[in-house]
């Protein structure tokens, strides 16, 4: 069940009405309704994976209690590692096993031993990377004594399985979400209205921006051998907007949906393409994952303490793991590596935290400098996205090589019966709207909200892509 499907448009009002009319008297009823809705939502993808979700929930729930009950550090550690190993084991089998098997076989073949890898014929359970990380953050927080273990199984299950965040995040923290689930939610008109606006804006990002860009980006990436330099540059830009519109649109719909139930989720995007350097980009892009890696991997590894070499090692590890988290393919690892290479010079020069403040643009040289920095950051981000989007590393290098050497900068008409430059005006309007509303959650609220909402609805209807349906990209992770 996709957020932008008719199925969800029927499902959501039913759950909403049950939640506020049948379950409003107690938090227990509200949570029961949400957990049932969440399991139904998940089973719509493939009911068999529901067992995996429930098993993962049970594992983390009991492990947390055991960690808390353990009287010796060794026992605590044993439970922690047991839980982490099983969780990562599942992730490994479903997501990474075939990748490793094939990579080892290729390696052995390259050194002269012909090996036929034994591959598993399994489908990747939707959302497994997200709910596994949910559970891991909870377990690790318990281990370090940051929170108490949750004894109510329904409340804990809801923390893991809450449908707005179940399949593609944001990756929640127990410290943020669990306290909200422990008390009865009261209906708040302003919050619900904000939720509706956020859902509508998320849909604009998904069906108007992301899906339209996808048509062009796919056309260019799949035929990059016949594309000229301008088209290849546009292809990378279109993909940058596609993935941003797709994932931040999804996050907006998730956050907006959750607000309808009186629950706030973590913000996942903060206008990342307005970043002045790559460090700021990573503080604004997929925030819940970046902060997860920071808190549960980077800091335990030593973070920014120690020598520069030690710090570089830590940065490399977290970017490589972050790339690998996205998928079992060398292209994602390369994408992580490139981002690490962008980040390391800033860290070595102690400039990775130099753009923490907010900024305004006026007519002066400082603003010009900021604007140039934003554009440069966007440009290098687009180069990294080429690796993320390409099927193989070789394709990515060939794409970049052709982009810089082909040398023609004319408009091209390509196989999908469109001109490569057609999207400029749409993207320019989108960027201006985003820029203008960058201090807000969404651009609809405020003055003339009805007019803005009408424009958004008209944009969804008239400019949205409906006939060539595209899944949310992050569902595959």
């Amino acid at each position, binding site marked *: 069940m996709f957020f932008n499907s008719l199925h969800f448009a029927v499902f959501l009002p039913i759950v909403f009405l049950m939640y506020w009319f049948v379950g409003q008297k107690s938090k227990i009823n509200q949570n029961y309704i949400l957990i049932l809705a969440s399991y139904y939502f998940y089973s719509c993808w493939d009911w068999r994976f529901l067992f995996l979700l429930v098993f993962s929930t049970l594992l983390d729930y009991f492990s947390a209690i055991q960690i808390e009950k353990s009287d010796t550090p060794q026992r605590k550690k044993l439970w922690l590692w047991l839980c982490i190993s099983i969780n990562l084991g599942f992730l490994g089998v479903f997501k990474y096993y075939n990748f490793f098997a094939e990579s080892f076989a290729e390696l052995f073949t390259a050194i002269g031993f012909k090996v036929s890898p034994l591959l598993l014929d399994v489908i990747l359970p939707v959302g497994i990377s997200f709910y596994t990380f949910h559970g891991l953050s909870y377990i690790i927080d318990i281990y370090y004594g940051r929170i108490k273990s949750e004894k109510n199984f329904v409340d804990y299950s809801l923390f893991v399985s809450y449908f707005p965040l179940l399949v593609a995040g944001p990756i929640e923290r127990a410290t943020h979400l669990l306290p909200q689930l422990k008390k009865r939610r009261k209906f708040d008109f302003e919050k619900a209205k904000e939720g509706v606006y956020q859902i509508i804006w998320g849909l604009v990002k998904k069906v108007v921006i992301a899906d339209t860009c996808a048509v062009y980006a796919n056309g260019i990436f799949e035929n990059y051998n016949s594309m000229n330099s301008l088209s290849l540059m546009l292809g990378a830009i279109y993909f940058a907007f596609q993935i941003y519109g797709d994932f931040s649109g999804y996050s907006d719909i998730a956050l907006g949906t959750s607000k309808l139930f009186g629950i706030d989720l973590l913000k996942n995007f903060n206008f990342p393409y307005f970043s002045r350097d790559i460090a700021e980009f990573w503080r604004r892009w997929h925030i819940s994952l970046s902060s997860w890696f920071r808190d549960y991997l980077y800091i335990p590894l030593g973070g920014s303490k120690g020598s520069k070499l030690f710090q570089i090692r830590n940065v490399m590890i977290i970017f490589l793991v972050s790339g690998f988290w996205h998928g079992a393919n060398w292209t994602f690892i390369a994408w992580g590596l490139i981002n690490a290479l962008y980040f390391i010079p800033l860290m070595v020069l102690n400039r990775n935290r130099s753009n923490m403040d907010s900024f305004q643009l006026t007519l002066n040289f400082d603003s010009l400098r900021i604007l140039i920095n934003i554009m440069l950051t966007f440009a290098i981000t687009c180069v990294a996205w080429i690796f993320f989007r390409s099927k193989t590393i070789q394709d990515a290098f060939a794409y970049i090589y052709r982009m810089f050497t082909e040398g023609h900068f004319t408009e091209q008409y390509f196989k999908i019966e469109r001109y490569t430059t057609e999207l400029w005006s749409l993207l320019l309007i989108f960027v201006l709207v985003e820029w203008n509303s960058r201090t807000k959650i969404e651009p609809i609220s405020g003055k003339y909200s009805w007019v803005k*909402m009408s424009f958004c609805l*008209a944009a969804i209807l008239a400019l949205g892509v409906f006939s060539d349906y595209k899944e949310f990209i992050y569902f595959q992770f």
Partner: protein
Amino acid sequence: MKRFFQFLGKGLAVLLLTMIVLDALYTVVYKQSDDRNKISHLYHSENQQYDVVFLGSSRVNNHFVPKYFNDRGYKTYNFGITRSRLEESALMLKLMVERNYVIDTLILQVDLNINTNDHSEAIRSLFMPYLHQSKTIREHYKDIPEYNELLLVPFYRYMHYDARIGFREMYASLVHKETNALHRDGFNALTKNQRPMVAADLSKYYPKRNKAYEEIKAVCKANNIHLIAVTTPMCMSTINREYFNHIQKVYPEIYRLEDAVTDDQYFSTCGHLNEKGATEYTKAVFDQFFKPRN
């Protein structure tokens, strides 16, 4: 909660109003555009008189040169549309009848398109702007699964077929952006030559009785139109040319002309002739069925 429901109610009203306004706007634009494709051209024309009309897919669109017929005294138009199946050809013929066309002879391409009874979504979409206006189109589509939504939900048809009749096409129609679909009396010549030519593979093709073809035959009979069903050329390296033998077993009345042009120099791709090939093929068809009038 009451305020929220009022808010949602207003939102839904805005949504419905937007759908109605957009539907009206798009329909008005399409109703005034007659030069973007052959279907809009057909819908906007009436009382035409043709000696010969061609119908079929790209293997008509790229293969029949009306000028060759026109020069010999036959008023001719090529209504072949790339990706069209026989279902769409049948509807085009019925639309011609609705628009009071008088047609002496219909030359219909019946070859690869009787491998299936399926339709073409891409071409079906081009009829949708006229769904409310044309009884023939409504009748033709009354049994398709999404018919009620297409007819009754405002703007649904433009969303459902957004790739073909969505904003881009509406805008192009509004500004009368030119296409080459109607140049040269509907003939679109292919100029590129694929070399080396990739052989077409018909090994999974098998001709079947086709509902739309039967319908075309019935419409022709009812309207006194002389129907000539023909096969069109495929390059000699085509895998399973036996397919054409099977066609005649299913429909013996179909004229075998797939060998009318055989030399690779006449082919743009294995399934499509280039301009020179199209002229050769048109000549072969003309010589077999017609005599010059001037």
